[in-house]
């Protein structure tokens, strides 16, 4: 997509990354990074969820489908999840999701999962910066544009159909009367 939010002031493309951070660890860490005035790339749009276990794979793929170039998931370290098992569930889904997006033509490196505790503001900074670098190397993903490109073949045909149907008003007299089950031979 070519709206201004994924362009630098000089008009160059810059990645747009959606981050799903768990409330208890990674989101708090991102907060800490902010309060400590650590600088990290501004390409990230953080969405806070209660737990990394709440990250439905549909959210991740929907983010890609709506124009994200990368998705970052952050949760509590193993054994630290506020809901005990949420981060393990997340890890298992993530491993299959990586395979599935790869099969669907999305580079698996566009998706990353990191365990970041509430105290690791510095890790937020490092991971976000690394992620932005990785996605910059990969370039724009731009799925909304692909949807548009794919549907061009339909627009072309819609035009053709409208044209031929307006010309088809004059069907041959034999066929002008619709046949029905009663009049057609079965």
């Amino acid at each position, binding site marked *: 997509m070519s709206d201004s939010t994924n362009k630098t002031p000089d008009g160059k493309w810059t990645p747009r990354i959606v981050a799903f951070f768990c409330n208890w660890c990674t989101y708090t860490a991102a907060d800490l990074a902010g309060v400590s005035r650590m600088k990290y790339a501004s390409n990230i749009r953080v969405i806070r969820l209660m737990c990394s276990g709440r990250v439905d794979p549909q959210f991740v793929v929907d983010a890609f489908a709506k124009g994200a170039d990368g998705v970052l998931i952050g949760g509590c370290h193993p054994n630290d999840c506020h809901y005990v098992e949420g981060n393990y569930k997340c890890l298992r*889904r993530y*491993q299959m999701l990586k395979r599935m997006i790869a099969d669907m033509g999305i580079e698996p490196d566009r998706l990353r999962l990191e365990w970041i505790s509430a105290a690791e503001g510095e890790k937020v900074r490092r991971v976000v910066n690394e992620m932005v670098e990785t996605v910059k190397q990969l370039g724009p993903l731009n799925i909304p544009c692909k949807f548009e490109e794919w549907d061009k*073949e339909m627009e072309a045909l819609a035009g053709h159909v409208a044209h031929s149907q307006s010309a088809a008003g004059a069907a041959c007299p034999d066929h002008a009367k619709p046949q029905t089950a*009663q009049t057609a031979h079965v």
Partner: protein
Amino acid sequence: MPLALITPNLKPLKPLMFKPKVAFYWCASCGGCEETVVDLAEDILGVVEKVDIVLWPVAMDFKYKDVEAMPDKSILATLLNGAIRSTEQEEMARLLRRKSQYMIAYGACAHLGGIPGLANQFTREHILKFNYEDGPAMANEKKTRPQLVTEENGRTPRLPALTNVVRSLDQVVEVDYYVPGCPPTPKITRAAVTALLENRLPPKGSVIAPDIALCDECPRKATKPANISFREFKRPHQALMDPQKCFLAQGVVCMGPSTLSGCEAACISGGMPCTGCFGPTSRVRDQGLKIMSSLCSNLEPKDEQGISAVLQGIPDPIGTFYRYGLARSLLRRKVNLPTD
């Protein structure tokens, strides 16, 4: 199926004075959906008596021109099966949409893209090359391919073109109702046709099946574990199956938990797990991702290597989780494929 579930509080209208016109049409499909209409057996005669069939290419001889000549909206309902993947199919879908009051996506392919939707993992060129040149059953030394336009004895026959993308019906025209299944069962077909003829239609956009997961009507429901942690995934041919026990309890992927009911667990009764042909329940946007999420979160291992080893038991996640739903999924098609 409990029709009352899908038709709340609607009083039947007065009996129709005229025989309503109905069209059946097929697009990218295997013919199985047509079979189901015939499988209504004696019931089909009842239906035929109540309606005027104005188009049914598989069984009767009508011409497209007949349909073109009909006034707009003069057909009560078109039941269209098959995905849309050629210019002809798309043209017919648009024409029938214009001529019909109700457009009904009949069967998994029209509903979700179906098995033909799996072709969205490949380019059109790849498919043509395989089918006319490289396929193991091909003897085509001259590498002849069907031509869109040819000259022959002064005639110029034209063939429809394959589109780059396989689409569900609602990705091409507006759809009023969906009759799910691969193919829809006679029971569900009868429910849909009766709802239509008696004017007891549910809200527009509904899938004509109870909006609850298949497990609910599965004969193996009692053995479905409340808590499950998979140590391995097996495919049905890899082990001797217990014919009474829930497939998930035996480590076999079953799409039942995220699939609409209404088929009366046809596959499970036949000894095979559900592969998801009825499509997802109304709360789910992406059928494949949802069942993946549910199954894969419940593995026993907690470490990367252990998890990965268990997940190897699902060698083709796209073909497994999107058996019928790829074209209608969030991504629709492998995103790095070109269009030509």
